């Protein structure tokens, strides 16, 4: 059963997205198929060049780059949200698939989860 974990909160302002990532990593640890879907302001997780030193946090951009190593199958992003927040081929991190119809994507997963 493939799990889709949805992140709709921008990075750094709350811990919710990181806890979504922990959920994805633990499913992957047990070889359970899992993908991440970024919607709304959550797509800002996927922007290159994050420098969170000044707010004393670790870079979610760097954390996220470990996802494929751990076995997270796909990083999906809502295309309209990417457009809205100015994410293009030039500033999107590697390995992200933009999807046009998130509703259709959502239908394909038996287990759709928000971390909070």
């Amino acid at each position: 059963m493939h799990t889709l974990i949805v992140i709709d909160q921008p990075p750094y302002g709350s811990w919710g997205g990181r806890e979504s990532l922990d959920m994805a990593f633990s499913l992957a640890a047990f070889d359970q198929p899992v993908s991440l879907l970024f919607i709304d302001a959550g797509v800002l997780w996927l922007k290159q060049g994050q420098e969170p030193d000044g707010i004393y946090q670790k870079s979610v951009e760097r954390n996220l780059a470990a996802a494929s190593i751990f076995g997270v199958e796909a990083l999906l992003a809502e295309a309209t949200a990417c457009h809205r927040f100015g994410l293009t081929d030039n500033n999107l991190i590697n390995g992200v698939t933009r999807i046009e119809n998130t509703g259709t994507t959502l239908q394909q997963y038996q287990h759709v989860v928000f971390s909070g």
Partner: protein
Amino acid sequence: MTMVIRNNEGFLEDASAWTTEVAREIASEDAIDLSENHWEIIMFLRGFYKEHEISPPSNRLFVKAVKEAFGEAKGNSIYLMQLFPGTPAKTACRIAGLPRPTNCL
């Protein structure tokens, strides 16, 4: 003996205090004599941490990360268990001077 501050489980309090000498000392407490094979994994883990700002959060993910980097022969729990007895991810992080894993899984 180099004086570095460690927590009650032997992890460095200050990651920048890590040297290869410190690594040897920590390893010797677990009766591990660091070989080339150990150093390969230790330096890999340190590189992984630098790149991703996290250690693999569980043993299983530690094995996966090593497998991704070095292939099946080294990316398996038996090999890593032999090098780093106990809980390999924890033992290896301790020797590599990385933070104590959160026991997340």
